[in-house]
Protein backbone atom coordinates (compact mmCIF):
# COMPACT_ATOMS: atom_id res chain seq x y z
CA UNK A 1 0.00 0.00 0.00
CA UNK A 2 1.38 3.40 -0.92
CA UNK A 3 1.27 6.50 1.24
CA UNK A 4 0.81 9.93 -0.25
CA UNK A 5 0.81 13.12 1.77
CA UNK A 6 -0.30 16.29 0.07
CA UNK A 7 -0.02 19.92 1.25
CA UNK A 8 0.04 19.04 4.91
CA UNK A 9 -0.14 21.99 7.29
CA UNK A 10 -0.04 21.87 11.05
CA UNK A 11 0.27 24.65 13.56
CA UNK A 12 0.35 24.59 17.31
CA UNK A 13 -0.48 28.00 18.67
CA UNK A 14 2.02 30.42 17.14
CA UNK A 15 4.35 27.61 16.19
CA UNK A 16 4.32 26.11 12.70
CA UNK A 17 5.03 22.39 12.92
CA UNK A 18 4.45 21.36 9.31
CA UNK A 19 4.41 23.61 6.31
CA UNK A 20 3.03 22.58 2.95
CA UNK A 21 4.47 19.11 3.20
CA UNK A 22 4.31 16.66 0.30
CA UNK A 23 5.67 13.14 0.41
CA UNK A 24 5.06 9.91 -1.43
CA UNK A 25 6.01 6.45 -0.21
CA UNK A 26 5.73 3.70 -2.82
CA UNK A 27 4.33 0.28 -1.99
CA UNK A 28 6.83 -2.02 -0.30
CA UNK A 29 9.42 0.61 0.45
CA UNK A 30 11.16 1.34 3.71
CA UNK A 31 11.42 5.10 4.04
CA UNK A 32 13.16 7.10 6.75
CA UNK A 33 11.88 10.47 7.92
CA UNK A 34 15.13 12.05 9.03
CA UNK A 35 15.50 15.33 10.84
CA UNK A 36 16.58 16.99 14.06
CA UNK A 37 14.18 17.11 16.98
CA UNK A 38 11.40 19.59 16.39
CA UNK A 39 11.48 19.11 12.62
CA UNK A 40 7.93 17.72 12.60
CA UNK A 41 8.75 14.15 11.64
CA UNK A 42 6.83 12.50 14.46
CA UNK A 43 3.85 14.74 13.76
CA UNK A 44 3.72 13.47 10.17
CA UNK A 45 3.65 9.90 11.44
CA UNK A 46 0.91 10.67 13.93
CA UNK A 47 -1.18 12.41 11.29
CA UNK A 48 -0.90 9.41 8.96
CA UNK A 49 -1.97 7.22 11.89
CA UNK A 50 -4.82 9.62 12.70
CA UNK A 51 -3.51 10.11 16.21
CA UNK A 52 -3.37 13.80 15.36
CA UNK A 53 -5.25 16.00 12.92
CA UNK A 54 -3.65 18.21 10.31
CA UNK A 55 -4.96 21.76 9.91
CA UNK A 56 -4.96 21.30 6.14
CA UNK A 57 -3.88 18.73 3.59
CA UNK A 58 -4.67 15.13 2.75
CA UNK A 59 -3.37 11.68 3.52
CA UNK A 60 -3.90 9.23 0.67
CA UNK A 61 -3.38 5.57 1.42
CA UNK A 62 -3.33 3.32 -1.63
CA UNK A 63 -4.81 6.03 -3.82
CA UNK A 64 -7.73 6.59 -1.46
CA UNK A 65 -8.20 9.72 0.64
CA UNK A 66 -8.42 8.50 4.21
CA UNK A 67 -8.44 11.87 5.89
CA UNK A 68 -12.00 11.23 7.06
CA UNK A 69 -11.57 7.54 7.80
CA UNK A 70 -11.79 6.35 11.39
CA UNK A 71 -8.69 4.97 13.05
CA UNK A 72 -9.45 1.29 12.81
CA UNK A 73 -10.24 1.41 9.08
CA UNK A 74 -6.84 2.61 8.03
CA UNK A 75 -4.98 -0.66 8.53
CA UNK A 76 -1.96 1.08 9.94
CA UNK A 77 0.46 -0.49 12.39
CA UNK A 78 2.24 1.82 14.80
CA UNK A 79 5.40 1.21 16.83
CA UNK A 80 6.12 3.71 19.60
CA UNK A 81 9.51 4.92 20.77
CA UNK A 82 8.84 3.76 24.32
CA UNK A 83 7.20 0.52 23.17
CA UNK A 84 3.82 1.26 24.82
CA UNK A 85 3.35 -2.39 25.68
CA UNK A 86 0.33 -3.12 27.86
CA UNK A 87 2.08 -3.50 31.19
CA UNK A 88 -0.60 -5.56 32.90
CA UNK A 89 -0.73 -8.16 30.12
CA UNK A 90 1.67 -10.96 29.29
CA UNK A 91 3.65 -10.83 26.07
CA UNK A 92 1.24 -13.34 24.56
CA UNK A 93 -1.77 -11.21 25.53
CA UNK A 94 -0.07 -8.11 24.16
CA UNK A 95 0.44 -9.63 20.74
CA UNK A 96 -3.02 -11.24 20.75
CA UNK A 97 -4.79 -7.99 21.70
CA UNK A 98 -5.34 -6.68 18.17
CA UNK A 99 -6.94 -9.97 17.12
CA UNK A 100 -9.05 -10.31 20.26
CA UNK A 101 -10.66 -6.90 19.91
CA UNK A 102 -11.92 -7.57 16.40
CA UNK A 103 -15.67 -7.67 15.92
CA UNK A 104 -16.98 -11.18 16.55
CA UNK A 105 -17.60 -11.88 12.86
CA UNK A 106 -13.99 -11.17 11.91
CA UNK A 107 -12.35 -12.54 15.03
CA UNK A 108 -10.26 -15.66 14.47
CA UNK A 109 -10.87 -18.68 16.69
CA UNK A 110 -8.94 -19.00 19.93
CA UNK A 111 -6.68 -21.57 18.39
CA UNK A 112 -6.01 -19.45 15.31
CA UNK A 113 -5.14 -16.47 17.49
CA UNK A 114 -2.80 -18.62 19.54
CA UNK A 115 -1.11 -20.00 16.42
CA UNK A 116 -0.74 -16.55 14.93
CA UNK A 117 0.77 -15.13 18.14
CA UNK A 118 3.27 -17.99 18.37
CA UNK A 119 4.18 -17.49 14.73
CA UNK A 120 4.76 -13.76 15.22
CA UNK A 121 6.76 -14.28 18.38
CA UNK A 122 9.04 -16.69 16.58
CA UNK A 123 9.34 -14.19 13.74
CA UNK A 124 10.76 -11.70 16.22
CA UNK A 125 12.72 -14.53 17.87
CA UNK A 126 10.96 -14.22 21.19
CA UNK A 127 8.70 -17.27 21.34
CA UNK A 128 10.20 -18.17 24.72
CA UNK A 129 8.90 -15.06 26.53
CA UNK A 130 5.18 -15.54 25.80
CA UNK A 131 4.21 -15.89 29.47
CA UNK A 132 6.34 -13.06 30.81
CA UNK A 133 5.34 -9.48 31.49
CA UNK A 134 6.83 -6.48 29.67
CA UNK A 135 8.78 -5.30 32.72
CA UNK A 136 10.70 -8.58 32.73
CA UNK A 137 12.13 -7.93 29.24
CA UNK A 138 15.02 -5.80 28.04
CA UNK A 139 14.42 -2.72 25.92
CA UNK A 140 15.39 -4.43 22.67
CA UNK A 141 13.11 -7.38 23.44
CA UNK A 142 10.24 -5.06 24.28
CA UNK A 143 10.57 -3.25 20.99
CA UNK A 144 10.53 -6.55 19.10
CA UNK A 145 7.36 -7.52 20.97
CA UNK A 146 5.86 -4.13 20.05
CA UNK A 147 6.68 -4.88 16.42
CA UNK A 148 5.09 -8.33 16.61
CA UNK A 149 2.00 -6.77 18.18
CA UNK A 150 1.73 -4.20 15.38
CA UNK A 151 2.15 -6.91 12.73
CA UNK A 152 -0.53 -9.13 14.30
CA UNK A 153 -3.37 -7.14 12.76
CA UNK A 154 -1.79 -7.47 9.31
CA UNK A 155 -1.41 -3.76 8.65
CA UNK A 156 -0.75 -2.55 5.13
CA UNK A 157 1.46 0.22 6.42
CA UNK A 158 3.89 0.13 9.31
CA UNK A 159 4.77 3.39 11.05
CA UNK A 160 7.72 3.41 13.46
CA UNK A 161 8.34 6.42 15.69
CA UNK A 162 12.04 6.49 16.65
CA UNK A 163 11.80 2.75 17.20
CA UNK A 164 15.36 2.38 18.48
CA UNK A 165 15.67 5.78 20.14
CA UNK A 166 15.56 4.45 23.69
CA UNK A 167 18.08 1.65 23.18
CA UNK A 168 21.82 1.57 23.67
CA UNK A 169 24.18 1.74 20.70
CA UNK A 170 24.89 -1.96 20.29
CA UNK A 171 21.28 -3.14 20.52
CA UNK A 172 20.33 -0.29 18.23
CA UNK A 173 22.72 -1.37 15.49
CA UNK A 174 21.59 -4.99 15.79
CA UNK A 175 17.91 -4.12 15.72
CA UNK A 176 18.09 -1.89 12.70
CA UNK A 177 19.76 -4.59 10.64
CA UNK A 178 17.10 -6.94 11.90
CA UNK A 179 14.36 -4.48 10.94
CA UNK A 180 15.78 -4.24 7.43
CA UNK A 181 15.71 -8.03 7.12
CA UNK A 182 12.18 -8.18 8.51
CA UNK A 183 11.10 -5.61 5.95
CA UNK A 184 12.71 -7.57 3.13
CA UNK A 185 10.85 -10.69 4.32
CA UNK A 186 7.42 -9.12 4.79
CA UNK A 187 7.56 -6.39 2.15
CA UNK A 188 5.25 -4.18 4.15
CA UNK A 189 5.33 -0.47 3.30
CA UNK A 190 7.13 1.15 6.20
CA UNK A 191 7.84 4.68 7.30
CA UNK A 192 10.16 5.24 10.21
CA UNK A 193 11.18 8.35 12.05
CA UNK A 194 14.75 8.88 13.19
CA UNK A 195 17.14 11.66 14.05
CA UNK A 196 20.12 9.36 13.50
CA UNK A 197 21.52 9.86 9.98
CA UNK A 198 23.58 6.69 10.18
CA UNK A 199 20.46 4.70 10.97
CA UNK A 200 18.58 6.25 8.04
CA UNK A 201 21.47 5.78 5.61
CA UNK A 202 21.95 2.17 6.61
CA UNK A 203 18.37 0.94 6.72
CA UNK A 204 16.17 2.94 4.40
CA UNK A 205 15.37 2.57 0.70
CA UNK A 206 14.69 6.25 0.56
CA UNK A 207 15.26 9.14 2.96
CA UNK A 208 13.14 12.21 3.46
CA UNK A 209 15.11 14.93 5.22
CA UNK A 210 13.02 17.34 7.26
CA UNK A 211 13.91 20.66 8.78
CA UNK A 212 11.58 23.01 10.66
CA UNK A 213 8.46 21.43 9.23
CA UNK A 214 9.63 21.49 5.63
CA UNK A 215 10.85 18.69 3.38
CA UNK A 216 14.43 19.56 2.44
CA UNK A 217 15.18 16.62 0.19
CA UNK A 218 13.87 13.19 -0.68
CA UNK A 219 15.84 10.47 -2.37
CA UNK A 220 17.90 7.31 -2.01
CA UNK A 221 20.60 7.30 0.68
CA UNK A 222 23.22 7.73 -2.06
CA UNK A 223 21.40 10.69 -3.57
CA UNK A 224 20.97 12.59 -0.33
CA UNK A 225 24.47 11.79 0.86
CA UNK A 226 26.35 12.37 -2.40
CA UNK A 227 24.16 15.10 -3.85
CA UNK A 228 22.63 17.02 -1.00
CA UNK A 229 20.14 19.58 -2.22
CA UNK A 230 21.17 22.29 0.21
CA UNK A 231 23.59 23.14 3.01
CA UNK A 232 21.24 21.83 5.71
CA UNK A 233 21.04 18.34 4.21
CA UNK A 234 24.78 18.23 3.67
CA UNK A 235 25.45 19.29 7.20
CA UNK A 236 22.90 17.01 8.77
CA UNK A 237 24.09 13.89 6.97
CA UNK A 238 27.54 13.76 8.49
CA UNK A 239 30.47 15.76 9.76
CA UNK A 240 31.69 18.57 7.56
CA UNK A 241 34.33 21.22 7.24
CA UNK A 242 32.84 24.56 6.38
CA UNK A 243 34.55 27.18 4.24
CA UNK A 244 33.25 30.64 3.44
CA UNK A 245 34.34 32.29 0.21
CA UNK A 246 33.29 33.29 -3.27
CA UNK A 247 32.43 31.52 -6.49
CA UNK A 248 33.49 32.92 -9.83
CA UNK A 249 32.75 31.15 -13.13
CA UNK A 250 32.74 27.64 -11.75
CA UNK A 251 35.72 28.10 -9.45
CA UNK A 252 35.45 28.54 -5.69
CA UNK A 253 37.96 30.69 -3.85
CA UNK A 254 37.84 29.79 -0.18
CA UNK A 255 40.38 31.70 1.87
CA UNK A 256 43.51 30.12 0.55
CA UNK A 257 41.97 27.16 -1.25
CA UNK A 258 40.81 27.09 -4.81
CA UNK A 259 38.41 24.33 -5.85
CA UNK A 260 36.18 23.61 -8.81
CA UNK A 261 32.51 24.36 -8.13
CA UNK A 262 30.54 22.40 -10.71
CA UNK A 263 27.08 23.77 -11.41
CA UNK A 264 28.08 27.34 -10.62
CA UNK A 265 29.70 28.20 -13.97
CA UNK A 266 27.45 31.24 -14.31
CA UNK A 267 28.31 32.69 -10.93
CA UNK A 268 30.02 36.06 -10.95
CA UNK A 269 32.00 36.58 -7.79
CA UNK A 270 29.06 35.39 -5.67
CA UNK A 271 29.40 34.76 -1.94
CA UNK A 272 29.29 31.04 -1.23
CA UNK A 273 29.84 28.33 1.36
CA UNK A 274 31.67 25.11 0.65
CA UNK A 275 31.36 21.87 2.60
CA UNK A 276 34.11 19.29 2.65
CA UNK A 277 33.57 15.87 4.21
CA UNK A 278 36.39 14.85 6.56
CA UNK A 279 37.22 11.86 4.35
CA UNK A 280 37.75 14.24 1.43
CA UNK A 281 40.48 16.04 3.32
CA UNK A 282 43.99 14.94 2.34
CA UNK A 283 46.89 15.29 4.77
CA UNK A 284 50.50 15.41 3.63
CA UNK A 285 54.01 16.25 4.85
CA UNK A 286 55.00 17.58 1.41
CA UNK A 287 53.95 21.10 0.49
CA UNK A 288 51.40 21.00 -2.32
CA UNK A 289 50.07 23.83 -4.45
CA UNK A 290 46.93 25.28 -2.89
CA UNK A 291 47.33 23.41 0.36
CA UNK A 292 46.46 24.89 3.75
CA UNK A 293 48.88 24.73 6.62
CA UNK A 294 47.51 23.45 9.92
CA UNK A 295 48.64 22.07 13.24
CA UNK A 296 47.39 18.73 14.52
CA UNK A 297 45.49 19.25 17.76
CA UNK A 298 44.19 15.73 18.38
CA UNK A 299 44.16 12.24 16.90
CA UNK A 300 41.43 9.65 17.54
CA UNK A 301 42.48 6.31 16.13
CA UNK A 302 39.72 3.87 17.07
CA UNK A 303 37.74 2.04 14.41
CA UNK A 304 38.64 1.71 10.74
CA UNK A 305 38.85 5.46 10.22
CA UNK A 306 41.17 7.68 12.20
CA UNK A 307 39.98 11.21 12.92
CA UNK A 308 42.47 14.05 13.02
CA UNK A 309 41.55 17.50 14.32
CA UNK A 310 43.60 20.38 12.96
CA UNK A 311 43.91 24.09 13.59
CA UNK A 312 44.56 26.47 10.72
CA UNK A 313 46.14 29.32 12.68
CA UNK A 314 46.39 31.66 9.72
CA UNK A 315 42.66 31.55 8.93
CA UNK A 316 41.72 30.87 12.55
CA UNK A 317 39.57 27.82 11.90
CA UNK A 318 39.35 24.18 12.93
CA UNK A 319 39.41 21.36 10.41
CA UNK A 320 38.71 17.68 10.61
CA UNK A 321 40.18 14.91 8.47
CA UNK A 322 39.24 11.24 8.39
CA UNK A 323 41.70 8.78 6.94
CA UNK A 324 42.18 5.03 6.96
CA UNK A 325 44.14 3.75 9.93
CA UNK A 326 46.91 2.36 7.68
CA UNK A 327 47.39 5.76 6.09
CA UNK A 328 47.66 7.38 9.52
CA UNK A 329 50.28 4.81 10.52
CA UNK A 330 52.18 5.26 7.23
CA UNK A 331 52.26 9.04 7.71
CA UNK A 332 53.29 8.63 11.36
CA UNK A 333 51.55 11.85 12.30
CA UNK A 334 52.11 13.21 15.78
CA UNK A 335 50.33 15.70 17.95
CA UNK A 336 51.44 19.32 17.48
CA UNK A 337 52.94 18.61 14.08
CA UNK A 338 52.28 21.04 11.23
CA UNK A 339 51.02 19.40 8.02
CA UNK A 340 49.62 20.38 4.63
CA UNK A 341 45.88 20.03 4.16
CA UNK A 342 44.22 19.67 0.75
CA UNK A 343 40.46 19.39 0.29
CA UNK A 344 39.97 16.88 -2.54
CA UNK A 345 36.43 17.92 -3.34
CA UNK A 346 33.83 20.24 -1.97
CA UNK A 347 30.14 20.81 -2.32
CA UNK A 348 29.59 24.48 -2.97
CA UNK A 349 26.37 26.35 -2.30
CA UNK A 350 25.76 29.97 -3.14
CA UNK A 351 24.97 31.98 -0.05
CA UNK A 352 21.26 32.54 0.02
CA UNK A 353 20.20 35.34 2.27
CA UNK A 354 17.00 33.42 3.09
CA UNK A 355 18.94 30.51 4.56
CA UNK A 356 19.43 30.93 8.25
CA UNK A 357 23.03 29.73 8.21
CA UNK A 358 23.36 30.29 11.93
CA UNK A 359 21.12 27.38 12.78
CA UNK A 360 23.31 24.75 11.22
CA UNK A 361 26.70 26.42 10.99
CA UNK A 362 29.65 24.83 12.69
Amino acid at each position, binding site marked *: MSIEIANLHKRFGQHTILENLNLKVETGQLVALLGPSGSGKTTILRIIADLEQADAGTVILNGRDTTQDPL*DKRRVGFVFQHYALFRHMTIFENVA*FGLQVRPRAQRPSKKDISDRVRELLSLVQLDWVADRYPHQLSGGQRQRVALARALAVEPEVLLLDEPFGALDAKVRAELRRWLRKLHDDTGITSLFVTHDQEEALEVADRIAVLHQGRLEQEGTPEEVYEHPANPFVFHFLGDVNLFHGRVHQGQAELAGVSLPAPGHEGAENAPAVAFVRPHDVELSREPEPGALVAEITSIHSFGPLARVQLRDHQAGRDLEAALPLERLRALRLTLGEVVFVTPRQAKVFLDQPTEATGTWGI
Partner: protein
Amino acid sequence: MSAASVREPFWVRLLLTLVALAFLAVALVAPLVAVFHQALKDGLALYFAAFQEPEAWAAIRLSLVAATVAVVLNTVFGLAAAWLLARFRFRGKGFLTTLLDIPFVVSPVVAGLIFVLLFGAQGWFGPWLDARDIRIVFALPGIILATTFVSLPFVAREILPTLQAQGTEEEEAARMLGASSWRTFWRITLPNIRWALFSGIVLCSARALGEFGAVSVVSGHIRGETNTLPLHVEILYNEYQFTAAFACASLLTLTALVTLLLKSLLEWRIRAAARRALEIPS
Protein backbone atom coordinates in the same frame (compact mmCIF):
# COMPACT_ATOMS: atom_id res chain seq x y z
CA MET B 1 22.27 5.79 56.56
CA SER B 2 23.50 9.36 56.56
CA ALA B 3 27.04 10.10 57.61
CA ALA B 4 27.71 10.58 61.31
CA SER B 5 28.61 14.22 60.77
CA VAL B 6 25.15 15.18 59.51
CA ARG B 7 23.28 13.20 62.15
CA GLU B 8 21.66 15.01 65.02
CA PRO B 9 22.99 14.25 68.51
CA PHE B 10 21.36 11.36 70.31
CA TRP B 11 19.37 13.49 72.77
CA VAL B 12 17.82 15.56 69.97
CA ARG B 13 16.62 12.44 68.18
CA LEU B 14 15.31 10.98 71.41
CA LEU B 15 13.47 14.19 72.28
CA LEU B 16 11.86 14.48 68.83
CA THR B 17 10.79 10.85 68.88
CA LEU B 18 9.31 11.18 72.36
CA VAL B 19 7.39 14.34 71.43
CA ALA B 20 5.96 12.64 68.35
CA LEU B 21 5.02 9.51 70.30
CA ALA B 22 3.43 11.47 73.12
CA PHE B 23 1.38 13.48 70.65
CA LEU B 24 0.21 10.34 68.88
CA ALA B 25 -0.69 8.72 72.18
CA VAL B 26 -2.78 11.65 73.37
CA ALA B 27 -4.40 12.57 70.05
CA LEU B 28 -4.95 9.16 68.46
CA VAL B 29 -4.31 6.08 70.57
CA ALA B 30 -6.00 7.22 73.79
CA PRO B 31 -9.33 8.10 72.09
CA LEU B 32 -9.28 4.79 70.24
CA VAL B 33 -8.73 2.84 73.42
CA ALA B 34 -11.34 4.92 75.23
CA VAL B 35 -14.00 4.16 72.60
CA PHE B 36 -13.57 0.42 72.88
CA HIS B 37 -13.17 0.56 76.66
CA GLN B 38 -16.41 2.47 77.12
CA ALA B 39 -18.26 0.25 74.67
CA LEU B 40 -17.15 -3.00 76.26
CA LYS B 41 -16.89 -2.17 79.96
CA ASP B 42 -20.40 -3.40 80.81
CA GLY B 43 -19.84 -6.71 79.10
CA LEU B 44 -20.35 -8.14 75.63
CA ALA B 45 -24.06 -8.81 76.19
CA LEU B 46 -24.85 -5.13 76.62
CA TYR B 47 -22.48 -4.26 73.79
CA PHE B 48 -24.36 -6.41 71.28
CA ALA B 49 -27.70 -5.40 72.75
CA ALA B 50 -27.01 -1.90 71.45
CA PHE B 51 -27.23 -3.18 67.87
CA GLN B 52 -30.49 -5.08 68.41
CA GLU B 53 -32.41 -1.85 68.83
CA PRO B 54 -34.59 -1.28 65.75
CA GLU B 55 -33.46 2.36 65.66
CA ALA B 56 -29.82 1.31 65.64
CA TRP B 57 -30.50 -1.09 62.79
CA ALA B 58 -32.34 1.55 60.85
CA ALA B 59 -29.40 3.93 61.33
CA ILE B 60 -26.90 1.33 60.14
CA ARG B 61 -29.02 0.54 57.09
CA LEU B 62 -29.49 4.19 56.23
CA SER B 63 -25.77 4.87 56.58
CA LEU B 64 -24.97 1.95 54.28
CA VAL B 65 -27.52 2.99 51.67
CA ALA B 66 -26.41 6.63 51.65
CA ALA B 67 -22.73 5.70 51.55
CA THR B 68 -23.22 3.12 48.77
CA VAL B 69 -25.10 5.52 46.51
CA ALA B 70 -22.60 8.30 47.22
CA VAL B 71 -19.63 6.06 46.46
CA VAL B 72 -21.14 4.81 43.19
CA LEU B 73 -21.94 8.36 42.06
CA ASN B 74 -18.53 9.67 43.07
CA THR B 75 -16.73 6.79 41.40
CA VAL B 76 -18.42 7.48 38.08
CA PHE B 77 -17.92 11.22 38.50
CA GLY B 78 -14.33 10.79 39.71
CA LEU B 79 -13.38 8.66 36.71
CA ALA B 80 -14.93 11.14 34.31
CA ALA B 81 -13.37 14.19 35.98
CA ALA B 82 -9.90 12.64 36.30
CA TRP B 83 -10.06 11.50 32.68
CA LEU B 84 -11.03 14.97 31.54
CA LEU B 85 -8.27 16.63 33.57
CA ALA B 86 -5.56 14.14 32.66
CA ARG B 87 -6.27 13.75 28.96
CA PHE B 88 -7.43 17.09 27.65
CA ARG B 89 -6.18 20.64 27.55
CA PHE B 90 -8.88 23.25 27.76
CA ARG B 91 -9.57 26.70 29.08
CA GLY B 92 -10.54 26.71 32.75
CA LYS B 93 -8.81 23.45 33.55
CA GLY B 94 -7.02 24.91 36.55
CA PHE B 95 -10.29 26.33 37.81
CA LEU B 96 -12.00 22.95 37.51
CA THR B 97 -9.17 21.29 39.42
CA THR B 98 -9.60 23.82 42.22
CA LEU B 99 -13.36 23.39 42.17
CA LEU B 100 -12.86 19.70 42.81
CA ASP B 101 -11.38 20.50 46.23
CA ILE B 102 -14.28 22.62 47.47
CA PRO B 103 -15.76 19.83 49.60
CA PHE B 104 -12.39 19.56 51.36
CA VAL B 105 -12.38 23.20 52.42
CA VAL B 106 -16.06 23.97 52.94
CA SER B 107 -17.33 23.19 56.42
CA PRO B 108 -19.77 20.25 56.20
CA VAL B 109 -22.37 22.28 58.10
CA VAL B 110 -22.25 24.92 55.38
CA ALA B 111 -22.60 22.18 52.76
CA GLY B 112 -25.70 20.91 54.52
CA LEU B 113 -27.15 24.41 54.74
CA ILE B 114 -26.64 24.89 50.99
CA PHE B 115 -28.93 21.95 50.31
CA VAL B 116 -31.53 23.26 52.74
CA LEU B 117 -31.31 26.62 51.02
CA LEU B 118 -31.81 24.98 47.62
CA PHE B 119 -34.37 22.29 48.34
CA GLY B 120 -35.86 23.18 51.75
CA ALA B 121 -39.47 24.36 52.17
CA GLN B 122 -38.32 28.01 52.08
CA GLY B 123 -35.58 27.25 49.58
CA TRP B 124 -35.25 28.17 45.89
CA PHE B 125 -36.77 24.98 44.55
CA GLY B 126 -38.82 24.28 47.69
CA PRO B 127 -42.26 25.38 46.43
CA TRP B 128 -41.75 23.69 43.07
CA LEU B 129 -40.79 20.39 44.75
CA ASP B 130 -43.56 20.74 47.32
CA ALA B 131 -46.17 21.13 44.57
CA ARG B 132 -45.02 17.82 43.11
CA ASP B 133 -44.79 16.12 46.48
CA ILE B 134 -41.07 15.48 46.13
CA ARG B 135 -39.17 15.51 49.40
CA ILE B 136 -35.43 16.06 49.41
CA VAL B 137 -34.51 17.78 52.66
CA PHE B 138 -35.33 15.78 55.81
CA ALA B 139 -35.50 12.65 53.64
CA LEU B 140 -33.22 10.08 52.00
CA PRO B 141 -32.44 12.13 48.85
CA GLY B 142 -31.10 15.00 50.97
CA ILE B 143 -28.94 12.67 53.03
CA ILE B 144 -27.54 11.11 49.86
CA LEU B 145 -26.89 14.55 48.34
CA ALA B 146 -25.06 15.76 51.44
CA THR B 147 -23.01 12.55 51.71
CA THR B 148 -22.12 12.70 48.01
CA PHE B 149 -21.02 16.31 48.35
CA VAL B 150 -18.61 15.78 51.22
CA SER B 151 -17.05 12.64 49.73
CA LEU B 152 -16.84 13.95 46.17
CA PRO B 153 -13.10 14.65 45.65
CA PHE B 154 -11.62 11.38 46.85
CA VAL B 155 -11.88 9.13 43.79
CA ALA B 156 -10.90 11.85 41.32
CA ARG B 157 -7.99 13.01 43.50
CA GLU B 158 -6.63 9.51 43.96
CA ILE B 159 -6.65 8.46 40.30
CA LEU B 160 -5.63 11.78 38.74
CA PRO B 161 -1.87 11.46 39.46
CA THR B 162 -1.80 7.83 38.31
CA LEU B 163 -3.65 8.67 35.15
CA GLN B 164 -1.28 11.56 34.45
CA ALA B 165 1.81 9.45 35.10
CA GLN B 166 0.47 6.71 32.84
CA GLY B 167 0.56 8.82 29.70
CA THR B 168 -1.50 8.12 26.60
CA GLU B 169 0.77 5.80 24.63
CA GLU B 170 -0.78 2.52 25.75
CA GLU B 171 -4.24 3.84 24.95
CA GLU B 172 -3.05 5.05 21.55
CA ALA B 173 -1.49 1.67 20.90
CA ALA B 174 -4.78 -0.05 21.70
CA ARG B 175 -6.67 2.29 19.39
CA MET B 176 -4.16 1.63 16.60
CA LEU B 177 -4.76 -2.09 17.05
CA GLY B 178 -8.43 -1.55 16.33
CA ALA B 179 -9.91 -1.38 19.83
CA SER B 180 -12.86 0.98 20.29
CA SER B 181 -12.46 3.74 22.85
CA TRP B 182 -14.91 1.96 25.17
CA ARG B 183 -12.90 -1.22 24.95
CA THR B 184 -9.64 0.66 25.37
CA PHE B 185 -10.99 2.13 28.59
CA TRP B 186 -12.01 -1.23 30.03
CA ARG B 187 -9.01 -3.24 28.89
CA ILE B 188 -6.15 -0.73 29.10
CA THR B 189 -6.95 2.38 31.14
CA LEU B 190 -8.93 0.81 33.97
CA PRO B 191 -6.51 -2.06 34.74
CA ASN B 192 -3.68 0.46 34.89
CA ILE B 193 -5.39 2.67 37.46
CA ARG B 194 -7.21 -0.05 39.39
CA TRP B 195 -5.25 0.21 42.64
CA ALA B 196 -5.56 3.96 42.75
CA LEU B 197 -9.26 3.61 41.99
CA PHE B 198 -9.76 1.11 44.83
CA SER B 199 -7.83 3.39 47.13
CA GLY B 200 -10.10 6.31 46.18
CA ILE B 201 -13.21 4.20 46.72
CA VAL B 202 -11.98 3.11 50.16
CA LEU B 203 -11.34 6.70 51.25
CA CYS B 204 -14.62 7.85 49.73
CA SER B 205 -16.52 5.11 51.60
CA ALA B 206 -14.88 5.98 54.90
CA ARG B 207 -15.73 9.64 54.51
CA ALA B 208 -19.30 8.85 53.41
CA LEU B 209 -19.95 6.49 56.33
CA GLY B 210 -18.53 8.84 58.94
CA GLU B 211 -20.13 12.06 57.73
CA PHE B 212 -21.88 13.97 60.51
CA GLY B 213 -22.13 17.73 59.95
CA ALA B 214 -23.72 18.03 56.52
CA VAL B 215 -26.07 15.12 57.08
CA SER B 216 -27.04 16.47 60.50
CA VAL B 217 -28.33 19.66 58.87
CA VAL B 218 -30.40 17.97 56.13
CA SER B 219 -31.59 14.91 58.04
CA GLY B 220 -34.17 16.39 60.40
CA HIS B 221 -33.30 13.71 62.98
CA ILE B 222 -36.40 11.59 62.53
CA ARG B 223 -35.70 8.51 64.62
CA GLY B 224 -35.65 5.25 62.74
CA GLU B 225 -36.04 7.17 59.48
CA THR B 226 -33.47 9.86 58.78
CA ASN B 227 -30.82 9.14 61.38
CA THR B 228 -27.54 7.82 60.09
CA LEU B 229 -25.18 5.94 62.37
CA PRO B 230 -23.12 8.99 63.42
CA LEU B 231 -26.35 10.92 64.18
CA HIS B 232 -27.61 7.95 66.15
CA VAL B 233 -24.45 7.99 68.25
CA GLU B 234 -25.03 11.62 69.10
CA ILE B 235 -28.64 11.02 70.12
CA LEU B 236 -27.69 8.08 72.34
CA TYR B 237 -24.96 10.13 73.96
CA ASN B 238 -27.26 13.06 74.63
CA GLU B 239 -29.67 10.63 76.28
CA TYR B 240 -26.90 9.35 78.59
CA GLN B 241 -26.94 5.88 77.01
CA PHE B 242 -23.18 5.76 77.09
CA THR B 243 -22.67 2.06 76.48
CA ALA B 244 -24.93 2.02 73.46
CA ALA B 245 -23.44 5.26 72.15
CA PHE B 246 -19.93 3.94 72.39
CA ALA B 247 -20.93 0.56 70.99
CA CYS B 248 -22.18 2.28 67.84
CA ALA B 249 -19.12 4.54 67.87
CA SER B 250 -16.88 1.49 68.04
CA LEU B 251 -18.52 0.20 64.88
CA LEU B 252 -17.59 3.41 63.08
CA THR B 253 -14.10 3.24 64.55
CA LEU B 254 -13.70 -0.31 63.28
CA THR B 255 -14.62 0.72 59.74
CA ALA B 256 -12.03 3.47 60.02
CA LEU B 257 -9.35 0.99 61.09
CA VAL B 258 -10.23 -1.36 58.23
CA THR B 259 -10.04 1.60 55.87
CA LEU B 260 -6.59 2.44 57.14
CA LEU B 261 -5.41 -1.11 56.65
CA LEU B 262 -6.84 -1.34 53.13
CA LYS B 263 -5.40 2.02 52.26
CA SER B 264 -1.86 1.09 53.23
CA LEU B 265 -2.14 -2.23 51.39
CA LEU B 266 -3.33 -0.41 48.27
CA GLU B 267 -0.61 2.20 48.52
CA TRP B 268 1.91 -0.57 48.60
CA ARG B 269 0.39 -1.99 45.41
CA ILE B 270 0.36 1.41 43.68
CA ARG B 271 4.01 1.98 44.54
CA ALA B 272 4.98 -1.48 43.32
CA ALA B 273 3.16 -0.86 40.03
CA ALA B 274 4.80 2.55 39.61
CA ARG B 275 8.22 1.06 40.29
CA ARG B 276 7.66 -1.57 37.63
CA ALA B 277 6.55 1.03 35.13
CA LEU B 278 9.64 3.12 35.80
CA GLU B 279 12.07 0.25 35.47
CA ILE B 280 14.67 1.29 32.98
CA PRO B 281 15.09 -1.12 30.09
CA SER B 282 18.61 -2.36 29.53
